[in-house]
């Protein structure tokens, strides 16, 4: 049995990478690179945030000493000088912080114990890093006993062994840490917490880098950068300690703190509850937001990332630059010509008596008492058999006229006439031109749906857009796509492009994965999930209605000031967990002029509901609609919202307030 080809996208998380792989798979941002976004030499502390898979851990590990060492084989000290920093990387999950809580002890006691424990942990990592980086330096070896002595002077050493080397000092500190472990672990059952706090809070964290720098001139100009990752694993009280360290930062140290957006629980410090402020005490970077706001840059970055992965898996294929050049050709794409004839040829080839949207239209006309002859005449006028997309456009324009209460036989004649001009590329056919420009993808989606075909999410740029600034999402889509292509017997990245079946299956699997993966942890998880399902259902109903009013609809705006608090909380959670994406600048309300918050459904979710990947139009939701969608107990109200909204979009276009208005064009 032959082995399947290696999947270049198999690993989607930086945590699964070795240090060597972090280096090998590193791709910098086009232009000035990641260093301009998150300068590791900047003394200003920074919080690096974003959704799951925004590349935060990869970036922070890239800054860490073990990876610096791999990036600069040879004289490491000279390289650190060039870099201007040395990165001490700490994963908060390793602290197992959940145990510093409860067990019959007050929160004040736990705050003190945790801070001390954290100091010891960070200090051991710092000493390991410095000890290794400076190991071969004669000046350091001479200074080592003095450095150790100074460090031991920071702590209460009663009963502790002496240490004159960094290694033995780490041993002493590790023993102190283990003593805390024992006490913290045993307190669950014996209720006695016996911890001897031997150092003032923060002293070890700030003094040790100062001692090293003062005693060893080779460290001049090198910042000790604490890279504190996975902050979301700390409780609010524990995060306060990190915020305190940020506030009380002393040179030559600085911080880069990594946290998922939902995991940033507080900016408060232990210093009289004072709150750290962005721009004052720290800089804030949301990596995914930055990517979304710089679409072209993200697209180029994504292409380089994919190329690098392919080259890693298949070295003979060429250089990353060469692969990047021909990347589009690896993925079968859609016919994107104006009328999409190749994509709609299945309809032209079908030997059916009548296309499904015409059958539906005739039924609707019959319901308002048009005769069969009249309905057939309308259908004949709207028909363009060889160009199903244009035909669908005619039907859409007809529904528009119907909703405007125009005379329907006259309207159909007018549309037929305009269509003739349009097909001759007559600039006078502005209505057709504009409607096609706006609604082309939605009309094509309707054609597919009417014919029982799957929606098509094809081509590299579509896959990149779907990832919405989260590189892990992109890798996940590609991982599934590659898997399906291999399963179907294809050899991706060889001769022929990855076929559409594999892409569609991959996209759909990635969409389902994302919905599962982005599930909110905690008590409100189900409420958020239900709300997103409702919102997506509303978008889908509107997209596939007879007369959608907004094109590529996956966006809404709303004045959230007066909606229910519970609904606001659900929207906030959905945004923090990347299910919704906040649109900078919001949306100006047409009536009040006020700027309302605006949110896009994450494109990763869109295939799950047959929605478009790219956003264009937006609907403004009323207070009642927001409550009905995002307040979980409003099942009945949501049904009413759907009915009301949809009533205005579906023939015979009854408004919500007057369901029995006069019917247009009747009685000719």
């Amino acid at each position, binding site marked *: 049995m032959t082995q399947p080809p290696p999947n270049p996208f198999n690993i989607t998380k930086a945590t*699964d990478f070795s240090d060597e792989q972090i280096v090998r798979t590193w791709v910098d941002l086009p232009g000035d690179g990641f260093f301009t976004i998150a300068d590791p030499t900047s003394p200003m502390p920074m919080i690096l945030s974003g959704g799951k898979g925004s590349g935060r851990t990869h970036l922070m590990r890239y800054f860490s000493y073990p990876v610096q060492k791999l990036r600069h084989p040879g004289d490491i000290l000279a390289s650190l000088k060039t870099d201007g920093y040395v990165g001490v990387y700490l994963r908060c999950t390793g602290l197992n912080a959940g145990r510093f809580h409860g067990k019959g002890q007050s929160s004040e006691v736990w705050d003190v114990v945790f801070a001390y424990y954290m100091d010891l942990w960070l200090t051991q990592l710092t000493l390991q890093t410095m000890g290794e980086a400076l190991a071969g330096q004669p000046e350091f070896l001479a200074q080592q006993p003095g450095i150790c002595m100074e460090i031991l002077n920071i702590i209460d050493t009663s009963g502790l062994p002496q240490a004159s080397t960094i290694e033995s000092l780490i041993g002493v500190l590790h023993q102190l840490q283990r003593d805390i*472990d024992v006490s913290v672990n045993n307190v669950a059952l014996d209720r006695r917490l016996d911890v001897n706090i031997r150092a003032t809070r923060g002293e070890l964290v700030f003094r040790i880098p100062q001692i090293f720098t003062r005693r060893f001139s080779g460290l001049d100009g090198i910042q000790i950068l604490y890279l504190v990752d996975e902050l979301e694993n700390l409780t609010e009280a524990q995060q306060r300690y990190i915020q305190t360290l940020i506030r009380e930062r002393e040179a030559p140290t600085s911080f880069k703190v990594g946290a998922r957006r939902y995991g940033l629980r507080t900016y408060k410090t232990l210093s009289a509850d004072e709150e750290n402020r962005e721009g004052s005490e720290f800089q804030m970077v949301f990596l995914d937001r930055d990517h979304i706001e710089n679409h072209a840059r993200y697209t180029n970055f994504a292409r380089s990332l994919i190329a690098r992965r392919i080259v890693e898996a298949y070295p003979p294929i060429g250089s990353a630059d060469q692969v990047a050049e021909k990347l589009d050709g690896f993925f079968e794409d859609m016919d994107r010509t104006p009328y999409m004839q190749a994509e709609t040829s299945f309809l032209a080839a079908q030997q059916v008596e009548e296309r499904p949207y015409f059958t539906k239209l005739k039924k609707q006309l019959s319901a308002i008492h048009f005769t069969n002859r009249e309905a057939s005449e309308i259908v004949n006028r709207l028909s363009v058999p060889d160009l199903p997309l244009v035909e669908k456009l005619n039907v859409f324009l007809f529904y528009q006229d119907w909703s405007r209460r125009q005379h329907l036989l006259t309207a159909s004649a007018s549309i037929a006439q305009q269509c003739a001009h349009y097909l001759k590329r007559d600039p006078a056919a502005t209505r057709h031109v504009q409607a096609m420009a706006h609604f082309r993808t939605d009309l094509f989606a309707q054609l597919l749906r009417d014919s029982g075909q799957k929606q098509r999410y094809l081509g590299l740029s579509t896959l990149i857009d779907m990832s919405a600034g989260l590189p892990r999402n992109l890798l996940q889509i590609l991982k599934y796509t590659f898997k399906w292509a291999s399963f179907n017997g294809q050899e991706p990245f060889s001769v022929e492009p990855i076929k559409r079946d594999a892409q569609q299956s991959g996209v759909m699997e990635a969409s389902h994965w994302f919905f599962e993966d982005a599930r909110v942890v905690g008590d409100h998880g189900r409420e958020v999930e239900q709300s997103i399902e409702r919102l997506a259902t509303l978008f889908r109903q509107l997209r596939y209605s007879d007369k959608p009013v907004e094109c590529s609809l996956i966006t809404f705006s709303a004045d959230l000031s007066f909606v229910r608090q519970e609904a606001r909380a659900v929207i906030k959670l959905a945004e923090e967990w990347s299910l919704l994406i906040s649109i900078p600048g919001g949306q100006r309300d047409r009536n009040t002029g006020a700027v309302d918050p605006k949110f896009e459904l994450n494109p990763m979710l869109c295939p799950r509901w047959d929605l478009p990947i790219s956003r264009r139009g937006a609907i403004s939701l009323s207070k009642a609609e927001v409550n009905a969608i995002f307040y979980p107990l409003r099942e009945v109200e949501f049904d009413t919202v759907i009915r009301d909204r949809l009533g205005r979009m579906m023939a015979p276009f009854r408004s919500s307030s007057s369901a029995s208005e006069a019917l247009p064009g009747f009685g000719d």
Partner: protein
Amino acid sequence: MVIDYTIFYKEKVRSPAEINGRWDVFISAFNESERVTAVFEAVQSTEKHWLIHPEYGFAAYELPSGDHIFPSQHLHEADFILEYTAAAGLNISGARICVDSTGFMRPQLMCLLKWLHEQGCDQFDVLYTDPVRYAEAERTQFTKGPVVEVRQVAGYEGQHVPDSGGNDLLLIGAGYDHELIRRVAEDKASARKTELFGLPSLSPEMYQESVLRASNAAEAMGGNEQDILFAPANDPFVTAQVIHEVVERERGRQRLANLYLSPLGTKAQTLGFALYYLTECRGSAASVIFPFARHYTRETTKGIAHIWKYTFEFPASTPVGSDHRANLTSGSS
């Protein structure tokens, strides 16, 4: 340390009436399953204690009657067990103890074992009843509502090392609930991950069902090659032996800094994890972690297939914390 867990004593019977033994105290956790109530009725014991887990959400009128009913509102396993042992005035000195593990929450079960061990009870019996099947096959929901936190289980918290250099191992006892697997795997995202499946399973279809469910957590388990381990779903001793062997192997390869164990499978498997930990891991860089939810389904199974009696024996107990110098990486535990 040369250990062969498979020589521990176990016995299987087909019905509660056949359970062999007589005890001074019998401890069980109440739920609506026949597996739990029928065994409680049948066992021969001077005292029979019902522990009432708040996670099942029983109202007062739904509780069983009797002299030894111990309801609790504590969700934390240590608080729950300490409240019970204090309220029961449990004196285990020389007492013959039997614990029916079947209805217990896993963390509370482990915590009780740890407490018994700490109190010097070096030998006791544990029962576990195999169901005929799970109520909804592979769709059976055990947890009700979301996982609210992943953390170490009280009494099973280790002394970990800060710089693992990527040499952490997470060993998950895979059960039916993929959401639990996912949460645990995400909590220790940087650890290498290994799954231990119950095979032979409690009944022939259950292995396939558990693999099917566990596959839903594949992404969280990571893209690297994983070891898959197997141990009988109803044998804690073979489970402990398999864990022992894989940890020894990893230790031999110098690839183990921090060890995390997470029993998400059957209670029998959970007992195996606890036995291994209490025998070999105390005071080392090893912890048991668990995804905690606030609510659990009261009844998830149908029927009684077999009833197992396991006799747990520990080396003579040592005072709390006295073994904390042991080090996993040095293999000196």
